[in-house]
């Protein structure tokens, strides 16, 4: 009799807690931030395709599906480190095969520039631009909206007259970085 009572009591408690947990799991369901969105947020959004995917979001999807994390050349080491942190994997050096051109020459960001006298108005670069940063129409001169250009390089190759080049953004007082090597002002003692 006692045993039966014990079983009943324990069973009852189990049922109550089970129901409670079941209810809580539905009522307080946490919608985890999808990993793809988080990865996408880490990527530089140049949409350059150097990773072999047609944009940053597709690469984020691929990384979520197990693709190597070291294919983002514009993001560099920083991005790889962040992705590694997020995915809980080892940091890997940047896969050199995904680096287009030489990155060593300068660290300053670049944007595409159309030499307008040479432009024949073929619209090929407009079709290549992943962020619609080129204005122009057929047989009209094209030009680049510098503020929207991500410097992805994709418009350079399609140009039949090679009138697009990548130029560094010049250093002005607005984007100048303090340099500790300049003689710092010291205080009076």
């Amino acid at each position: 009799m006692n045993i039966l009572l014990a079983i009943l009591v324990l069973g009852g408690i189990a049922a109550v807690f089970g129901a409670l947990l079941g209810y809580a799991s539905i009522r307080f369901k946490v919608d985890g931030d999808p990993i793809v969105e988080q990865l996408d947020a880490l990527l530089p959004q140049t949409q350059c395709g150097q990773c072999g995917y047609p944009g940053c979001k597709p690469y984020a999807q691929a990384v979520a599906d197990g693709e190597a994390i070291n294919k983002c050349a514009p993001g560099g080491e920083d991005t790889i480190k962040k992705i590694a942190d997020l995915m809980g994997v080892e940091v890997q050096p940047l896969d050199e095969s995904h680096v287009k051109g030489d990155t060593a020459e300068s660290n300053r960001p670049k944007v595409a520039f159309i030499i307008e006298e040479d432009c024949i108005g073929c619209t090929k670069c407009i079709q290549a631009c992943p962020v619609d940063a080129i204005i122009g129409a057929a047989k009209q001169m094209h030009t680049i909206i510098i503020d929207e250009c991500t410097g992805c390089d994709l418009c350079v190759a399609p140009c039949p007259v090679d009138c697009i080049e990548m130029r560094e953004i010049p250093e002005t007082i607005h984007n100048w970085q303090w340099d500790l090597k300049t003689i710092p002002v010291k205080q009076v003692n």
Partner: protein
Amino acid sequence: MESVIERISRGQFWDFHGGIHPPEQKTLTSTKPIKQLALPKQLIIPLQQHIGLEGDILVSIGEHVLKGQPLTASTNPMEVPIHAPTSGTISAIKMSVIAHPSGLEQLCIFLDVDGLDTWRKRNVCPDLSLLTNHQIIEKIADSGIAGMGGAGFPTHIKASSKPDINFLIINGAECEPYITSDDLLMMEQSIAIVDGIEILDRLLSPAFILIGIEDNKPKAIRALQQATKDNEKIKICVVPTKYPIGGEKQLIHTLTGKEVPAGQLPIHSGIVMHNVATCFAINEAVRHDTPLIRRVVTVTGQALNKPQNVWALLGTPINFLLEQCELEVIENVKQPVIMGGPMMGFSVSSEMVPIVKISNCILVPSKKEMPSAFEKESQEVECIRCGQCSDVCPSNLLPQELQWSAKAKDHPQLQKLNLSDCIECGACAYVCPSQIPLVHYYRVAKAEIREKHQLDLKAERAKVRFEARKLRLEKEKLARQEKNKKAAAARKAAMNKATPEATGAKSAVAAALARVKAKKAAQENPESAKTVDSAEASTTEVAKDQKSQVAAAIARAKAKKQQKEAASEQPKTSVSEKPDNITPTAQATDQKSKVAAAIARAKAKKQQKETASQSPASENGEKTNAEVKVAQETKKETVSKTEQKSEVTPSNSSIKEDAQTDDITSVQTQNNPDTSTAASQPNAVDKKAKIAAAIAKAKAKKKLKETNAAAETSTDKDNG
């Protein structure tokens, strides 16, 4: 609120956290009046001298401008115009080093001073009651006034009133060591300053007006008290001397006990603060129609013989000021020049840097006075965690934590530690026993965070644009497909309709199809007719045979070629005729081959004589060839002959050739070596011909096969 005023009237103020008491060094200049300088030879006027944007240039190179004439126009509230500080000619508009720690260049207008100092026409306004508030603000904006305390925020934005301003605070604290420009201005121009304050009073209508002055400026305090004795609203608040009490947030806290929340402007708390020099400039602009073209600059430091406050025209190069104040030049020592005070200023990279609206001090210390400015190497050692920096921080931050995070570039942590609230006063670096240039680490980190933020914004925008583009492409594709589908359906529907037009269209299509078919057939027929002409009689007869059809097609092509050749030159063809490999050599129109052909002909003639018995027969055969069927029997002979010689006689298809052809047949039979030599000679000469010959050889082989087949069939037929 009343308690605040009570406390102020009792002379009791709040205290802000931290602060330091560096040696003041103000007596170097505070005892001398502001000096009026002679005109410099050239002024360099940067287009942007404040926070905000550059205006549009109004003048061109070579233009003569009058004193006070605007050089740029503003189209945006954040743009502040600049004016010609004196009359003269614009000599250049180009990039030049400006007063910025980076030492980078910016667009500047170069003005060659003519020395006449001719004013443009001014509209002096003695009675301000005639002007509306809007007109006054417009005057302030047109005069190019930007906050002269250091930040350079456009004054007209701060002066255009917002509702419920409790306090208008006039900042005369001037807490930084060495600098006395505001002090002297208050001493000498107290009435003008109070007039300026009254204009602001009218614009903003604040509940209280407070003037904050440090207690180390007794003369200025007395002068202002004198000037404000008729105005009950203005309270002069003498605050204790402590660096950096002149900071906006620090002075607000000291006077009112209020703290401006992080990331907010004082205006959100109902407080507006203006510098005394700005008040003076406002008065000048509104009452005397004098734009901001000059300011008081403290030129000081022990390296100068005559340190003094001067009225400097905006755009005056620093080296002119140093000359006027008699800089002691020491050989082989690069004299450091600091713009701004010793705490917050920066070393300038060139002595051609011009004075701008926010430059209040030029400091040229001697080596004894400030040895650190002469040292290239940093004396920095590791942080010993003494905590003195956080004791003196006026913003209640944790400088050492900030420094570690800044070195580690841990931006989220820096934001958590409220780096953005750092006013870069330099108090922490001043007390640091390890000589860590803390402020520099913060400046670097701030710039990095700012850039990172910009990049993030840009990335976000790029993402949006990329997504939008993808969507657009998808849409366009669908639309195109839809359109194509619709068009096809419409066509079909139109065709299937029983209307006369539809049937007409249908029949038109049918007719067109029929026409195309007929055309094709017609094209085929004449060609086959040609083949009949050109090919052997035997081949025409077996034309129905599949094999012979192929042969005929090839023969057609051959015939076409030969036709061309024959048309171009008869004798040449005659030689080139037989083995095809000679054709290209002949084509090469080599002189030599011509000669060879002539020899061959001659030989052939000789042989003709010799083979007189044979020639009539062959002649007959050739002749009948033209009439195709008549020559059946003679043909047999030729065919058998060709078979024996395994030569391509039938393929010669020398139909068009006349009697000469029989010569050729004979030539062909015996002259093969000759022709080959004829071929080899040009070979040596012409490389092209060689290649052509090789191709021709291959062709000849093919042809041989074909003609053999044709011959066989023909013989078969004949036999049959």
